[in-house]
């Protein structure tokens, strides 16, 4: 069944799944980088195909649409959070707290690691190689967040492709990984943002790619995030985004 899901991207993009399969697939594909890429590509393909059916709408429809939208409120854009001058002090306090927790987790990881919890089993299966590779440079932390029972995998997508964000609230950790990412020049950095329910964002941390590869995990503040976004910021990061969001994805809703 799960195996089957990987082959449904084409039918999904053509809206050719029944409701049950569509639901199943919509639960699956955001967590699967291959399927999300296929869905994005097939949607564009379908859209080109749609051009072959092109047909002028009647003139009055334009008036109808423009009249209708005048009465429809647009959703809130994703904006920077309010100026918060306590941010800097918070950062320092958090850093201290996180250092302590890092040490605690470092000790725990010896027994935590074998507990490849079922919730993350799929991710772990896919990413075992990644975790092993990463564990050489950042002992255990990458594998640990992947193995967290509450880990949620979010695929953030943009023009440039996709990244995976693994988030464990229990561990206050985020891991980001991706391939084929365009490397930035040294004066800039990628910055990950929690996207909150009201459309505002909160900083989640910085990461870089090296030869197109991103592998990073770190401690974060806790937020009721509904999504993740990524911007490019000056080296050292920003307290709020100073450029357009280039990757964005919704956090899957969990039932626990």
């Amino acid at each position, binding site marked *: 069944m799960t195996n089957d899901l990987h*082959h*449904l*991207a*084409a*039918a999904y*993009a*053509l*809206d*050719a*799944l*029944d409701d049950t399969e569509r639901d199943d697939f919509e639960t699956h594909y955001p967590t699967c980088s291959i399927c999300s890429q296929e869905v*994005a*590509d*097939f*949607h*564009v*393909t*379908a*859209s*080109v*195909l*749609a*051009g*072959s*059916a*092109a*047909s*002028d*709408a*009647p003139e009055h*429809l*334009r008036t*109808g*649409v*423009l009249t*209708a*939208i*005048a009465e*429809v*409120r*647009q*959703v*809130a*854009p*994703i904006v920077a959070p309010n100026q918060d001058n306590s941010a800097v002090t918070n950062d320092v306090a958090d850093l201290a707290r996180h250092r302590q927790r890092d040490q605690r987790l470092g000790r725990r990881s010896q027994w935590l690691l074998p507990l490849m919890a079922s919730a993350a089993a799929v991710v772990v299966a896919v990413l075992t190689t990644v975790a092993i590779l990463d564990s050489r440079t950042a002992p255990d932390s990458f594998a640990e967040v992947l193995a967290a029972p509450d880990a949620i995998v979010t695929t953030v*997508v*943009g*023009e*440039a*492709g996709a990244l995976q964000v693994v988030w464990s609230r229990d561990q206050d950790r985020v891991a980001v990984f991706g391939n084929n990412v*365009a490397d*930035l020049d040294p004066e*800039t950095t990628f910055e990950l943002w929690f996207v909150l329910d009201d459309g505002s964002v909160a900083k989640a941390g910085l990461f870089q790619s090296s030869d197109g590869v991103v592998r990073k995990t770190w401690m974060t503040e806790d937020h009721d995030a509904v999504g993740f976004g990524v911007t*490019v910021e*000056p080296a050292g990061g920003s307290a709020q985004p100073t*450029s*357009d*969001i*280039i990757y*964005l994805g919704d956090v899957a809703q969990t039932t626990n």
Partner: protein
Amino acid sequence: MADVRHIRRRRPDDDLEAVDSPASALRRAAKGDEAAFGEFYDMTQRRIFGVVLRVVRDRSLAEEITQEVYVEIWRLAPRFDQQRGSAVSWATTVAHRRAVDRVRSEQSRRDREDRQHVTPVVVPDPVGDVVTDQLDNTRVHSALATLSESQREAVSLAYFSGYTYREVAAVLELPEGTVKTRIRDGLIRLRDHFGVTP
């Protein structure tokens, strides 16, 4: 500020830089600019109305759905810029899905009303018929020509008739797995032909 253009570019349908691209119009519409949304409408209405009409067949229903689609796009526009892919592709996806959902709910209502007609009687409606009487379709036409007849048929029934692949299988009297494979292979071929993959 760093040049991020190189990582946010490139989709076949809309050039983010061009002032008069659908993506650019939609971005301005996202700031509440109704006139810009009018431009976006003008640039996309043929495709959007066309695909909705193809799926639902009924003109007045197609008009109603098209209007709903544009209102939805207007509403969500502020979130679009950061979202995936091309503005045209996004709008088409919204439109097609809404059209298909409408057709299906209508179909299931009729099925309930009329138990005798469990399977819809359909006339396969190959894309090729329509392609020939369109102006800017050389691209689609030559792409479709690379598909096998059976792939073309399966893709067309799924997309333009709004059937599930199971319904396509029933119509063509083929195993579901076969149809699924044909749709997938056909779409992969189109995708590669259109140069969609980065």
